């Protein structure tokens, strides 16, 4: 119990998230002076011209096109009670992706777009969908597509619980874990742009702008948290459950670090 208390406690002087964002951007701008901020939307391909060309060509006839149409059709389909998804979201769900995830003062927790989609279903008497595969990522991708070009605007309200969630996500991002003793930041901050087993490692800046993504490796649209799980596995860490509090906090921190960049989802990734 003492150990857990020690681990959970964030003991350091807490930085201001806005200061963190400035430092995070400056770090990458100093490291990759040839890139402009918008380039970071491209993920690893911003740092690898060959992949950039290849993925750019794929976006002309993107492999997620049919899945996106399916997501749109699902979103428009009424529930058994006659209500629709659009009734659950501000502006009918159009152009809202840039505000996710957000801190919900009522529940005292971070809410992702995927969580809100399932909450909407449950409020309307429907069973929740699988977070990682199939319909839900497709619906999420459709909603994200309606916000393309909007700048990410994740907010951390003046609520100690929101700041604690942000700090927990930040701690997760920078903590080494697993058999390989690697933090998210070990690859995506300190070794971004380097090659790892033939793959260029993406920068943490811009990492949250383009999800759900169709990863060629997976052959389907998938949400950011599936990538968290895959990263955990690659470092020899037991992944957490999708939409666990830890992953939602991580998504909160990571998306906040991309504030000001445009929503570029859905996307294609290697």
């Amino acid at each position: 119990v003492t150990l857990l208390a020690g681990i959970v406690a964030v003991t350091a002087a807490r930085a201001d998230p806005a200061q963190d964002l400035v430092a995070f951007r400056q770090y990458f701008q100093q490291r990759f002076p040839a890139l402009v901020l918008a380039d970071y939307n491209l993920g690893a391909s911003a740092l690898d011209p060959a992949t950039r060309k290849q993925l750019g060509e794929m976006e002309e006839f993107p492999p997620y096109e049919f899945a996106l149409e399916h997501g749109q059709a699902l979103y428009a389909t009424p529930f058994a009670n006659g209500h629709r998804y659009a009734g659950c979201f501000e502006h009918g769900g159009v152009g809202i992706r840039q505000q996710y995830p957000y801190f919900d003062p009522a529940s005292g927790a971070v809410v992702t777009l995927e969580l809100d989609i399932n909450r909407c279903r449950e409020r309307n008497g429907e069973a929740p969908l699988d977070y990682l595969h199939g319909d839900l990522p497709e619906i999420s991708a459709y909603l994200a597509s309606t916000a393309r070009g909007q700048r990410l605007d994740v907010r951390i309200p003046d609520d100690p619980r929101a700041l604690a969630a942000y700090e927990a996500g930040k701690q997760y991002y920078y903590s080494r874990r697993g058999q390989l003793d690697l933090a998210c930041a070990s690859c995506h901050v300190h070794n971004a742009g380097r090659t790892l087993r033939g793959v260029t490692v993406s920068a943490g800046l811009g990492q949250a702008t383009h999800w759900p993504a169709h990863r060629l490796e997976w052959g389907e649209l998938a949400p950011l948290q599936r990538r968290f799980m895959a990263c955990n596995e690659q470092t020899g860490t037991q992944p957490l459950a999708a939409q666990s509090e830890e992953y939602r906090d991580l998504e909160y921190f990571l998306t906040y670090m991309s504030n000001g960049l445009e929503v570029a989802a859905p996307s294609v990734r290697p």
Partner: protein
Amino acid sequence: VSRARRLLRSWACAAWLASAAAAAAPPADAVAAREYARVEAAATAALTQAGAAGFAWLHTRELLAQAHAEADAGRYQQALELATTARTQAELALVQARAEATAWQARVPR
């Protein structure tokens, strides 16, 4: 003759003592089974703590499951080896969790 009898008597006595000792000692499997139970309990406890902290390693649970399967099949030596590896992993994950409670801060760009 009496010397031969004495020798025979002491040999018989030694043989009896040896067989009695062998009968009293638990079989090797029983020792391994007890040791396995002890190590498995320690591994499970450490893994639970590591998991609660978000630091469990990827294969520890699987190693424990394999250990359980070996123990169920009566192969306690193999079960013990697997549980020992699982315990080592889980304890290392806890060491990592303790270290990272503060170490992560040094990695944040300032």
